[in-house]
């Protein structure tokens, strides 16, 4: 290890998170090590113990992890999706052959997972933007989280039913 400690990011959650060292030492809980959070630098430059930082396993931490995981999953599918769509340039046989994979009973549930990721990531993104830009956003953090969860389910559940009906 060299260089100055790198800073972790809050991903727009509006929360001060900071440099690492406790995480590397293995004293922080696994989830904290996963997201690279450790301790906050206080005004005197000393480190606030991990137990006093904001992310210690609450909803904020989990929504932050889910946002990353869903984002990376969608990006992964996007690369695949650009490749499959590019097959139209090679002609109908190639494209239709490949798209057949998406229509299999094995793939349909994965498609539903993808849609869940898209809905979650979209609405969580809106929540993050509101907390950043709306001056009361931080105060209504909990109602916003509840609204996001409810709205996600309202959009997702009917979509999942419609999408999965054909395979049953």
């Amino acid at each position, binding site marked *: *290890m*060299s260089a100055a400690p790198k800073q972790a990011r809050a991903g727009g959650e509006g929360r001060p998170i900071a440099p690492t060292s406790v995480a590397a030492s293995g004293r922080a809980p696994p989830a904290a090590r996963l997201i690279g959070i450790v301790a906050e630098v206080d005004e005197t430059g000393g480190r606030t113990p991990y137990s006093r930082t904001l992310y210690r396993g609450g909803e904020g931490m989990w929504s932050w992890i889910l946002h990353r995981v869903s984002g990376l999953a969608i*990006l992964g599918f996007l690369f695949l999706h650009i490749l499959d769509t590019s097959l*139209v340039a090679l002609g109908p046989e190639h494209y239709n052959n490949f798209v057949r994979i998406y229509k299999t009973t094995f793939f349909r549930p994965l498609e539903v997972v993808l849609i869940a990721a898209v809905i979650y990531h979209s609405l969580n993104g*809106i929540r993050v933007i509101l907390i950043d830009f709306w001056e009361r956003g931080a105060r209504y953090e909990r109602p916003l989280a509840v609204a996001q969860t409810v709205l996600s389910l309202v959009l997702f559940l009917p979509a999942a039913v419609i999408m999965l009906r054909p395979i049953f």
Partner: protein
Amino acid sequence: MATLGEVYEKSFPSRRPSPWELRSWLFMRISGILMLGLLLGHVAIMHVFGGGVERISFEFVAARWSGFFWRTYDWLLLVLALLHGAIGARIVIEDYIRRDGLRVLARSVLYTTTFVFLALGTIVTVTFNAPGGG
């Protein structure tokens, strides 16, 4: 009224925003809002209603891309989603890869891949010729 820089610093108090950092942060928010309509529309049309993925075929794409509107829609979504995803992945790389050399390598691979896919997607969307002229 808080300036953009102040809003950014509220999220990252320990980072002084470089102009590039501030712009990419803002791009995430703007592209996110634009995609809220574009992407949820895309999902509703292609995956949920009207038979979903069941009816997707070469003929479906050819009919869809015979007009200017859907080609532009799809291309815009491609660009926004890819750049949004690439910037997000870059932040993940910055956070987790601590070794300098490895981080530079990961970043280079990400930027190259993004560029290649952006070029591929753009070429396919722009040059596609529906059979029978479109």
